[in-house]
Protein backbone atom coordinates (compact mmCIF):
# COMPACT_ATOMS: atom_id res chain seq x y z
CA UNK A 1 0.00 0.00 0.00
CA UNK A 2 1.01 3.61 -0.48
CA UNK A 3 1.15 5.58 2.74
CA UNK A 4 1.64 9.22 3.65
CA UNK A 5 2.22 10.68 7.11
CA UNK A 6 1.06 14.08 8.30
CA UNK A 7 3.16 15.26 11.24
CA UNK A 8 2.00 18.28 13.23
CA UNK A 9 3.92 17.99 16.49
CA UNK A 10 7.20 19.74 17.28
CA UNK A 11 10.25 17.57 17.91
CA UNK A 12 11.21 17.18 21.58
CA UNK A 13 8.07 19.03 22.75
CA UNK A 14 5.68 16.12 22.52
CA UNK A 15 5.81 12.53 21.37
CA UNK A 16 4.31 12.99 17.91
CA UNK A 17 7.58 13.04 15.97
CA UNK A 18 8.89 9.92 17.73
CA UNK A 19 5.58 8.11 17.18
CA UNK A 20 5.54 9.09 13.50
CA UNK A 21 9.13 7.99 12.91
CA UNK A 22 8.51 4.63 14.59
CA UNK A 23 5.34 4.13 12.56
CA UNK A 24 7.17 5.08 9.35
CA UNK A 25 9.92 2.52 9.97
CA UNK A 26 7.36 -0.17 10.82
CA UNK A 27 5.26 0.32 7.71
CA UNK A 28 8.36 0.23 5.50
CA UNK A 29 9.47 -2.96 7.25
CA UNK A 30 6.11 -4.49 6.33
CA UNK A 31 6.82 -3.81 2.66
CA UNK A 32 4.62 -0.77 2.18
CA UNK A 33 5.64 2.33 0.30
CA UNK A 34 5.86 5.63 2.18
CA UNK A 35 5.34 8.32 -0.43
CA UNK A 36 5.95 11.30 1.80
CA UNK A 37 5.98 12.81 5.23
CA UNK A 38 4.25 16.19 5.27
CA UNK A 39 5.46 18.47 8.06
CA UNK A 40 2.82 20.98 9.09
CA UNK A 41 2.25 23.42 11.97
CA UNK A 42 4.96 22.92 14.64
CA UNK A 43 5.95 19.73 12.84
CA UNK A 44 8.03 21.87 10.49
CA UNK A 45 10.71 22.13 13.19
CA UNK A 46 11.66 18.55 12.30
CA UNK A 47 13.29 20.05 9.21
CA UNK A 48 15.65 22.37 11.11
CA UNK A 49 19.08 21.58 9.65
CA UNK A 50 20.84 23.12 12.67
CA UNK A 51 19.13 20.86 15.21
CA UNK A 52 21.78 19.34 17.49
CA UNK A 53 20.24 17.15 20.18
CA UNK A 54 22.49 15.44 22.76
CA UNK A 55 24.30 12.47 21.23
CA UNK A 56 22.52 9.96 23.45
CA UNK A 57 19.08 11.07 22.25
CA UNK A 58 17.37 10.18 18.98
CA UNK A 59 18.23 12.66 16.23
CA UNK A 60 14.85 13.14 14.60
CA UNK A 61 16.01 15.28 11.67
CA UNK A 62 18.66 12.70 10.75
CA UNK A 63 16.04 9.99 11.18
CA UNK A 64 13.86 11.54 8.51
CA UNK A 65 16.84 12.08 6.20
CA UNK A 66 17.75 8.40 6.57
CA UNK A 67 14.24 7.41 5.45
CA UNK A 68 14.65 9.59 2.40
CA UNK A 69 18.04 8.10 1.56
CA UNK A 70 17.10 4.46 2.06
CA UNK A 71 13.48 4.45 0.89
CA UNK A 72 13.06 7.56 -1.23
CA UNK A 73 10.55 9.09 1.15
CA UNK A 74 9.75 12.69 0.13
CA UNK A 75 10.10 15.13 3.02
CA UNK A 76 7.64 17.93 2.34
CA UNK A 77 7.51 20.99 4.57
CA UNK A 78 4.61 23.43 4.48
CA UNK A 79 6.20 26.68 3.35
CA UNK A 80 3.65 28.93 5.05
CA UNK A 81 4.10 27.17 8.41
CA UNK A 82 7.90 27.15 7.98
CA UNK A 83 8.56 30.76 7.00
CA UNK A 84 6.72 32.23 9.95
CA UNK A 85 8.78 30.01 12.27
CA UNK A 86 12.12 31.06 10.77
CA UNK A 87 12.57 27.90 8.75
CA UNK A 88 13.64 28.54 5.17
CA UNK A 89 15.93 27.20 2.50
CA UNK A 90 18.62 29.19 0.72
CA UNK A 91 16.29 30.51 -1.92
CA UNK A 92 13.70 31.80 0.55
CA UNK A 93 16.44 33.25 2.77
CA UNK A 94 17.73 35.27 -0.17
CA UNK A 95 14.23 36.34 -1.06
CA UNK A 96 13.59 37.56 2.48
CA UNK A 97 17.04 39.11 2.95
CA UNK A 98 18.14 36.69 5.67
CA UNK A 99 21.80 35.95 6.36
CA UNK A 100 21.46 32.18 6.76
CA UNK A 101 19.15 29.32 5.93
CA UNK A 102 17.70 26.67 8.21
CA UNK A 103 16.25 24.09 5.82
CA UNK A 104 18.13 22.07 3.22
CA UNK A 105 17.57 19.10 0.94
CA UNK A 106 16.22 16.48 1.14
CA UNK A 107 13.57 18.54 2.94
CA UNK A 108 11.61 20.58 0.43
CA UNK A 109 9.44 23.60 1.07
CA UNK A 110 6.10 23.07 -0.55
CA UNK A 111 2.49 24.18 -0.43
CA UNK A 112 -0.42 22.64 1.39
CA UNK A 113 -1.74 21.61 -2.01
CA UNK A 114 0.82 18.81 -1.86
CA UNK A 115 -0.94 17.49 1.22
CA UNK A 116 -4.23 17.39 -0.67
CA UNK A 117 -2.46 15.59 -3.49
CA UNK A 118 -1.01 13.02 -1.07
CA UNK A 119 -4.38 12.40 0.52
CA UNK A 120 -5.83 11.69 -2.91
CA UNK A 121 -3.15 9.46 -4.37
CA UNK A 122 -2.15 7.47 -1.27
CA UNK A 123 -4.10 4.54 0.12
CA UNK A 124 -3.57 5.68 3.70
CA UNK A 125 -2.83 9.04 5.33
CA UNK A 126 -1.99 8.80 9.02
CA UNK A 127 -1.84 11.94 11.16
CA UNK A 128 0.34 12.42 14.23
CA UNK A 129 -0.82 15.45 16.19
CA UNK A 130 0.79 17.25 19.11
Amino acid at each position, binding site marked *: *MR*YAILLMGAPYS*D*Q*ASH*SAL*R*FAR*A*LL*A*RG*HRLEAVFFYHDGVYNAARLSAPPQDEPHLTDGWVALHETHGVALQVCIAAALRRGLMDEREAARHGKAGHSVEAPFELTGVGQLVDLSQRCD*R*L*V*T*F*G*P
Partner: protein
Amino acid sequence: MKLHIVNRSPASHRVHEQALAAMGPEDRLLLIEDGVQGGLPQLVRHFEAIAGRLYAQREDLEARGLLGRCDGSVQVVDVDGFVQLTEQAEHTLSWY
Protein backbone atom coordinates in the same frame (compact mmCIF):
# COMPACT_ATOMS: atom_id res chain seq x y z
CA MET B 1 -14.21 0.27 9.22
CA LYS B 2 -12.28 3.32 10.38
CA LEU B 3 -9.40 3.41 12.83
CA HIS B 4 -9.53 6.19 15.40
CA ILE B 5 -6.27 7.09 17.16
CA VAL B 6 -6.27 8.87 20.52
CA ASN B 7 -3.07 10.16 22.16
CA ARG B 8 -4.53 11.82 25.27
CA SER B 9 -5.32 10.24 28.61
CA PRO B 10 -9.01 10.23 29.56
CA ALA B 11 -7.83 11.25 33.04
CA SER B 12 -6.69 14.67 31.81
CA HIS B 13 -8.45 15.33 28.49
CA ARG B 14 -11.88 14.72 27.03
CA VAL B 15 -10.93 14.29 23.40
CA HIS B 16 -11.78 10.58 23.64
CA GLU B 17 -15.42 11.62 24.01
CA GLN B 18 -15.29 13.22 20.57
CA ALA B 19 -13.67 10.14 19.12
CA LEU B 20 -16.30 7.85 20.66
CA ALA B 21 -19.11 10.08 19.41
CA ALA B 22 -17.73 9.87 15.89
CA MET B 23 -17.26 6.10 15.86
CA GLY B 24 -19.38 3.79 13.78
CA PRO B 25 -20.43 0.30 14.94
CA GLU B 26 -17.47 -1.41 13.24
CA ASP B 27 -14.84 1.25 13.96
CA ARG B 28 -11.83 0.56 16.16
CA LEU B 29 -9.95 2.80 18.56
CA LEU B 30 -6.20 2.67 19.20
CA LEU B 31 -4.70 4.34 22.25
CA ILE B 32 -1.16 5.67 21.78
CA GLU B 33 1.22 7.88 23.77
CA ASP B 34 -0.45 9.14 26.98
CA GLY B 35 -3.71 7.74 25.62
CA VAL B 36 -2.64 4.25 26.72
CA GLN B 37 -3.62 5.20 30.27
CA GLY B 38 -7.19 4.69 29.06
CA GLY B 39 -6.53 0.96 29.00
CA LEU B 40 -5.94 0.78 32.74
CA PRO B 41 -8.67 -0.89 34.82
CA GLN B 42 -9.47 2.35 36.65
CA LEU B 43 -10.00 4.29 33.38
CA VAL B 44 -11.23 1.72 30.87
CA ARG B 45 -14.86 2.45 31.84
CA HIS B 46 -14.66 5.46 29.48
CA PHE B 47 -14.51 2.98 26.60
CA GLU B 48 -17.27 0.60 27.72
CA ALA B 49 -19.30 1.36 24.59
CA ILE B 50 -16.64 -0.10 22.29
CA ALA B 51 -15.70 -3.23 24.22
CA GLY B 52 -13.73 -5.59 21.97
CA ARG B 53 -12.69 -2.78 19.64
CA LEU B 54 -10.20 -1.03 21.93
CA TYR B 55 -6.45 -1.35 21.34
CA ALA B 56 -3.38 0.09 23.08
CA GLN B 57 0.15 0.41 21.72
CA ARG B 58 2.63 -1.80 23.52
CA GLU B 59 5.67 0.47 23.15
CA ASP B 60 3.86 3.38 24.80
CA LEU B 61 2.68 1.17 27.66
CA GLU B 62 6.21 -0.09 28.15
CA ALA B 63 7.70 3.43 28.12
CA ARG B 64 5.34 4.35 30.94
CA GLY B 65 5.89 1.23 33.01
CA LEU B 66 2.33 0.11 32.33
CA LEU B 67 2.90 -3.07 30.34
CA GLY B 68 0.82 -5.88 31.82
CA ARG B 69 -1.44 -3.48 33.67
CA CYS B 70 -4.17 -3.04 31.04
CA ASP B 71 -7.68 -4.27 31.58
CA GLY B 72 -8.30 -7.69 30.05
CA SER B 73 -10.69 -6.22 27.49
CA VAL B 74 -7.91 -4.17 25.88
CA GLN B 75 -5.99 -5.64 22.95
CA VAL B 76 -2.32 -4.70 23.23
CA VAL B 77 -0.54 -4.34 19.87
CA ASP B 78 2.99 -3.30 18.97
CA VAL B 79 3.79 -0.79 16.23
CA ASP B 80 3.60 -3.60 13.67
CA GLY B 81 0.06 -4.22 14.90
CA PHE B 82 -0.61 -0.50 14.56
CA VAL B 83 0.37 -0.71 10.89
CA GLN B 84 -1.84 -3.79 10.46
CA LEU B 85 -4.79 -1.90 11.93
CA THR B 86 -4.26 0.87 9.36
CA GLU B 87 -4.10 -1.76 6.61
CA GLN B 88 -7.48 -3.13 7.66
CA ALA B 89 -9.14 0.27 8.05
CA GLU B 90 -10.30 2.26 5.05
CA HIS B 91 -9.45 5.53 6.83
CA THR B 92 -7.66 6.62 9.97
CA LEU B 93 -8.66 9.58 12.13
CA SER B 94 -6.37 11.03 14.77
CA TRP B 95 -7.74 12.82 17.82
CA TYR B 96 -5.41 14.97 19.90
